[in-house]
């Protein structure tokens, strides 16, 4: 089976710091792949390299077996890869609907859209509201509220809803439950499984071991800028995974 998204020999240096050191990566169709690693292990850089936010210094990225070169997140998005960044990437002064449709606005049909370039506000607001209630993550009264008036958890919910609504090939979630309470985290985990049920694979970066072990099909363990091993969550324990990512245990000790 060809991986849907694959990275080979990725290298990224920031000055004298090597964030990615000849790193390999693969995501199989329909799976949830968790990426775990210590702080500074290079997880975020890996994700940025496969989602177009940074250009790797060396190495190649393949989407469905074909080599791709993303020059910007827009390229990756157009190819069907949606990412929820840790920083959430939202414009605080703009509304929820504006943010969800940023960069892919819908225009009114007919003359008002083609000549006057008028945005179709009501449709965008309706879809945004539907997506948010699908997620059931929050009670937002007004879809035209500025994002800066939302709480951290609500903002995260909007960002996840945006990715889930538009991702067609791959969805990448960088710490999607970090700012969420217990119930909200549960909804995001349910959503992740819903998305997989629709056949869309997910990359989940998280420090939360119970969440990772609950939803992941495979776990990519990242350490010192490269993948040191991939483990099966059913065949290993959380403490093994933590030992691997911190270097307390060598991968071959559990390779069997």
């Amino acid at each position: 089976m060809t991986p849907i998204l694959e990275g080979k020999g990725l290298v990224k240096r920031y000055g004298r710091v090597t964030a990615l050191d000849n790193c390999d990566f693969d995501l199989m169709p329909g799976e949830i792949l968790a990426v775990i690693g210590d702080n500074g292990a290079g997880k975020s850089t890996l994700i940025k390299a496969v989602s177009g936010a940074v250009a790797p210094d060396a190495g190649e990225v393949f989407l469905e077996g074909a080599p791709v070169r993303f020059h910007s997140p827009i390229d990756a998005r157009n190819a069907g890869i949606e990412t929820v960044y840790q920083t959430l990437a939202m414009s605080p002064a703009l509304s929820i609907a504006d943010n969800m449709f940023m960069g892919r606005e819908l225009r009114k049909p007919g003359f008002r859209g083609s000549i006057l370039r008028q945005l179709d506000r009501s449709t965008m607001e309706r879809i945004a509201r539907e997506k948010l209630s699908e997620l059931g993550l929050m009670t937002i009264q007004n879809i035209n509220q500025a994002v800066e008036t939302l709480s951290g958890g609500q903002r995260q919910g909007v960002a996840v809803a945006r990715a889930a609504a538009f991702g067609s090939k791959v969805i990448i979630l960088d710490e999607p439950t970090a700012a969420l309470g217990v119930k909200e985290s549960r909804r995001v985990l349910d959503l992740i499984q819903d998305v997989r049920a629709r056949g869309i694979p997910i990359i989940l970066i998280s420090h939360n071991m119970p969440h990772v072990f609950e939803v992941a099909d495979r776990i990519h363990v990242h350490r010192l800028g490269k993948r040191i091993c991939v483990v099966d969550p059913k065949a290993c324990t959380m403490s093994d995974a933590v030992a691997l990512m911190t270097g307390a245990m060598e991968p071959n000790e559990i390779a069997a």
Partner: protein
Amino acid sequence: MSASDNYEAASAGASDRVAEFEDTRRGPVQKFHHALHQTPSLVPLIVLVLSIAVFGVLLGSKFFSPFALTLILQQVQIVGIVGAAQSLVILTAGIDLSVGAIMVLSSVVMGQFTFRYGLPPEVAIAAGLMCGTLMGFINGFLVARMKLPPFIVTLGMWQIVLATNFLYSANETIRSQEIATSAPLLQLFGTKFNIAGAVFTVGVIFMVLLVLILAYVLRHTAWGRHVYAVGDDPEAAELSGVNVTRTLITVYMLSGLICAFAGWALIGRIGSVSPTSGQLANIESITAVVIGGISLFGGRGSILGMLFGALIVGVFSLGLRLLGADAQWTYLLIGVLIILAVAVDQWIRKVAA
């Protein structure tokens, strides 16, 4: 999973109500604050209406006449047009110090192309408009591609464009009568018409239409939303799929084009083509933008506010002059207004509501 992993079940019996926004603390102050947060041009509008009312009471029909009120419009038309260009740039969290210089150079190009090279005025005007757009493109390229700070780029361009203007025109003024006889199209924006004592010029109509069109574009098109997103947080805009470089370059190009139109309107306003005119346009446009409630930090404010800001300055200037006050009082009060406007902006940005 072990039993300890079942912590989520503990919340099973809890109410499903999550955060709800019960408006319990909604005193008049909070309501006002919320309204300002939603509609940032409200403050300058209130100040404008109040100042017209105060001067109207103090001066009576001398001020409160169609003639005097439309005179204000004529006096602010150049600042209003340049202010529209400045608003676009400031909404992207930039600043354009070269607006006045671009305006003057464009007007000089229009005049010199007509009179030095004998080109038809239509061609000369098109060349002037292209010249302004090109200057804007250089600004935009340096800001967006070379990632230089807008303040520095436009400070440099201000000097470069102004010097080019003096070198190219040889500091020579083209007289009003000459223009009126051989190329009246250059003075088009000065064409006046009377409606019941109120005097309008093409330049005034152009300013109002320009602001209304830009208000529509900023609010109802994707490009307009991108301008706000870029000013708000360029990195977030880039990650969420906005082409930040292209947005910035088009903003500066449009700003240059609008400045060139201001140059055309300037010929209509003063009659002649003078390389020494419009020297204060950059400062005056920034003043209008700031009083109009557009945040210098970008991403907040509306272009209508800028128009109100320009009109406030116009009302104060004319009102104080008619009262016989020293012109320095106008500058003093405008200084106070600028600081007050920024203080109000800071207060609005505190999203306590």
